[in-house]
């Protein structure tokens, strides 16, 4: 059976971002949206320091959590191993964004066009429905189905990426992996060769790019004035005091009234 996948060699990647732009142009992505990213990793201290570029996007997981949480089946896994999103079915609930361990998904709410234009340029029409819905790398399935390579693979000037059927040992992706020593991120359809650095790519991507539930509230931004939680807490405490004080006062008054009546 076909199981499409991609192999990436970090030893070759120069961090030029050509793949990012090729993807944005090919899919007519809205301003600010990128389905794939190339990030610089740096660690250590001179002379024991290193730097590497990490191209990453949806890893087309074998058993994608994004698909099993989707309430409308807009996110789906195809027989060819790729994970897709039917944007006409997506309600934009965003559960899949929290469920994707690799931060691969975006939900863009802004109905904007490049250069502030009020309407899409002719080459931007494809992205018209992509507002308020989840989106991510599709492995360029519409190109692959007619025998072309994904846009990023074709665009890469140093051939750091290869694409093909992972179940076929002769496929370009398998051959590339054999040549570069790329190993799969466990449970996914993407393989990485890290130039002998011994990185745990899946872990690195999760740690750096997972979109945690509290993305809007970083650890230090949490305890600020006007933080809704703090306000709610203070409000509840005040309400508790007020409720107790009010009832106590009413009781006292009733008791006094009773005493007066008796007197």
């Amino acid at each position, binding site marked *: 059976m076909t199981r499409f996948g991609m192999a990436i060699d970090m030893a070759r990647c120069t961090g030029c971002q050509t793949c990012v732009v090729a993807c944005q142009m090919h899919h007519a992505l809205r301003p600010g949206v990128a389905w794939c990213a190339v990030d610089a990793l740096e660690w250590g201290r001179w002379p024991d320091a290193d730097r590497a570029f990490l191209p990453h996007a949806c890893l087309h997981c074998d058993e994608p959590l994004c698909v099993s949480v989707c309430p409308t089946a807009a996110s789906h896994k195809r027989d060819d191993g790729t994970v897709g999103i039917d944007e006409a079915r997506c309600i934009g609930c965003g559960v899949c964004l929290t469920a994707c361990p690799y931060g691969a998904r975006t939900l863009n709410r802004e109905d904007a066009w490049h250069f502030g234009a009020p309407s899409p340029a002719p080459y931007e029409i494809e992205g018209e429905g992509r507002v308020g819905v989840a989106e991510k790398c599709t492995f360029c399935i519409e190109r692959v189905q007619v025998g072309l390579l994904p846009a990023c693979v074709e665009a890469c000037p140093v051939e750091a990426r290869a694409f093909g059927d992972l179940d076929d040992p002769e496929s370009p992706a398998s051959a590339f992996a054999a040549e570069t020593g790329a190993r799969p991120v466990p449970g996914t359809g993407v393989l990485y060769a890290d130039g002998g650095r011994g990185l745990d790519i899946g872990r690195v991507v999760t740690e750096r790019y997972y979109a945690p539930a509290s993305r809007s509230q970083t650890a230090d931004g949490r305890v600020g004035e006007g933080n*809704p939680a703090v306000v709610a807490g203070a409000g509840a405490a005040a309400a508790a005091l007020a409720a107790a004080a009010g009832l106590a006062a009413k009781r006292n008054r009733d008791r006094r009234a009773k005493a007066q009546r008796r007197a």
Partner: protein
Amino acid sequence: MFGDSIIWYLFLGGGGAGAAAVLAACDLLFAHRSRLGRSDRLAWTDELSRPLFARGYLAATVALVLGALCLLFELGRPERFLYVLALPTASVLTFGSYVLAATIVCAAALGGVALFGSARTPVVLVRALEWAALALGLATTAYTGVLLAQIGFVPLWGSPLLPALFTCSSLSVGVACTMAAALPDARRAPRLLRALARADSVVIAVEALVLTAYLASAAFGSGQAEAVEAFLFGPGMWFFWIGFVACALALPLALDFSYTGCGRVALAAAAVPLVLAGGFFLRYCIVNVPWT
């Protein structure tokens, strides 16, 4: 993608469903016991009144609807919200949307019966609605936990005890709501309020046990000791200790005990908002668990 509104959704949805379940359970218990002889009856159930149910179910309905709206307005495509019901899948959110919607219907209908019902309202219908409200309410409270538990790679989320914890918390919020609904009649119905306060302490005690088991199993069972440590002693620790442990567990437990002891209504009244705030902060802490 979950932001602050998911916390409100989990809190209002869970709490409202808990309240509906508690109210339904009260009336079912009354109906069941009233068939027995006088001596076997629970004295406090005689003090259940229509205004109590009207107030309680109304509050539950409002909370549930507000909770649903919290999720609805966060959708990227709010106009497509019916897809969740119309294009059902085997997902947790689909299940939750169905049971939440059905709980709203039951709570609203029972509120309507309490407000406008007459002797001609068929008892069978009311009983059926109450059983449905109980079952659906419990399903909704558990669902709010499963929604997070299925995203198991997030530290502290992937535990079967999380739905149990959320269920306990929702029931405690539900009992608190019922206490609030019973407060205006506190003088006429002291035994009812006392029974509710007792129920509240039992639920809170169970909740504390489940919390301990939940954290212990995460720390020692699933090797998330670091995450538990950051949760208990990290930068957000006071939300947990003051917001949840003090507000939802320690203080209401003390207040409920002193109320059942001395009968000062103000004590019971003070427990209610504390339980509600504590329920909110439990969701706040879990949704915002720190990454280690």
